[in-house]
């Protein structure tokens, strides 16, 4: 199974085991059982009513995914950390405005994506625009068609594979990368992605198709039988 190849590991040096630090002392609004805490909307309801530990649990549940998201969008660790931190702080400040029309995680992803996008724009002003129409269909014809063989990703060690994925996604133009990250990595729906980025549904679909084709082509250089590895 493919997913078994991607186990959690620490960025940088070695595995770091850190005890969970409670953000505050226990409070009377805490949920009564750990079973109930499995459910995101109960955690959100508890956090809204002042249960700090419930919010802490939400942070602990999603911090890695939100950091991955902000890293994928900004491609810069400092910006990714700032964007993640501000996303969690803003989500706490605006928790009362969260109506529960979507999953809390989806709402959080939208906040984090906006924070990351702002930093990307600051770092690369005038370098890209989400509003620009994409080119016609003529450049969509795939090039570099070689057989990858079975389980191409298994030819690489986990850390090597992570590096490859990080490199290829960083090479993707931001207007395509953002859509791919929200739609295919964070698994937002097309409509949620469109809403998060202020794009139309057809624009999301068009960018997603290009992103997928471009990433396939970039991975082809690593995965083709007898290719560079």
């Amino acid at each position, binding site marked *: 199974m*493919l997913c078994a190849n991607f186990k959690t590991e620490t960025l940088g040096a070695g595995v770091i085991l850190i005890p969970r630090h409670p953000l505050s002392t226990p409070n009377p609004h805490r949920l009564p059982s750990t079973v109930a805490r499995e459910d995101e909307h109960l955690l959100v309801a508890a956090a809204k009513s002042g249960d700090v530990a419930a919010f802490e649990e939400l942070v602990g549940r999603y*911090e890695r*995914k939100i950091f991955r998201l902000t890293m994928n969008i900004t491609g810069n660790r400092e910006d990714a950390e700032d964007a993640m*931190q501000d996303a969690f702080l803003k989500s706490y400040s605006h928790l009362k405005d969260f109506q529960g029309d979507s999953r809390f995680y989806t709402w959080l992803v939208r906040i984090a994506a906006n924070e990351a996008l702002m930093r990307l724009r600051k770092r690369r002003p005038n370098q890209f625009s989400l509003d620009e129409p994409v080119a016609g269909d003529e450049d969509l014809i795939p090039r570099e068609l070689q057989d990858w063989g079975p389980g191409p990703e298994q030819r690489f060690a986990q850390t090597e594979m*992570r590096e490859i994925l990080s490199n290829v996604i960083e090479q993707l133009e931001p207007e395509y990368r953002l859509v791919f990250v929200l739609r295919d990595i964070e698994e937002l729906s097309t409509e949620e992605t469109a809403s998060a980025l202020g794009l139309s549904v057809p624009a999301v679909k068009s960018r997603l198709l290009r992103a997928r084709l471009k990433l396939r082509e970039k*991975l082809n250089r690593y995965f083709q039988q007898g290719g560079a590895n």
Partner: protein
Amino acid sequence: MNCQGVIHELSNFIDGELDEVLKRDLERHLAGCEECRLVVDQTKKTIEIFCCCEPVELPGEVRNRLHEALRRKLKEAAQ
């Protein structure tokens, strides 16, 4: 459907958003076109690899700074 049509509908096909008639048409083309089969299979694989890649553990100092900032925020909110 020709090769260009397959590429045009590739995302809809992978996402299961094609209507039955178009889907059968596309699958008929795939049955006879090895190049399009490669593109479809490899694009699916590309998505699968990214989607299955678990996020890494937060670096210790990053997590500490995040939780420290949250504690400050919560303290402010409580005052």
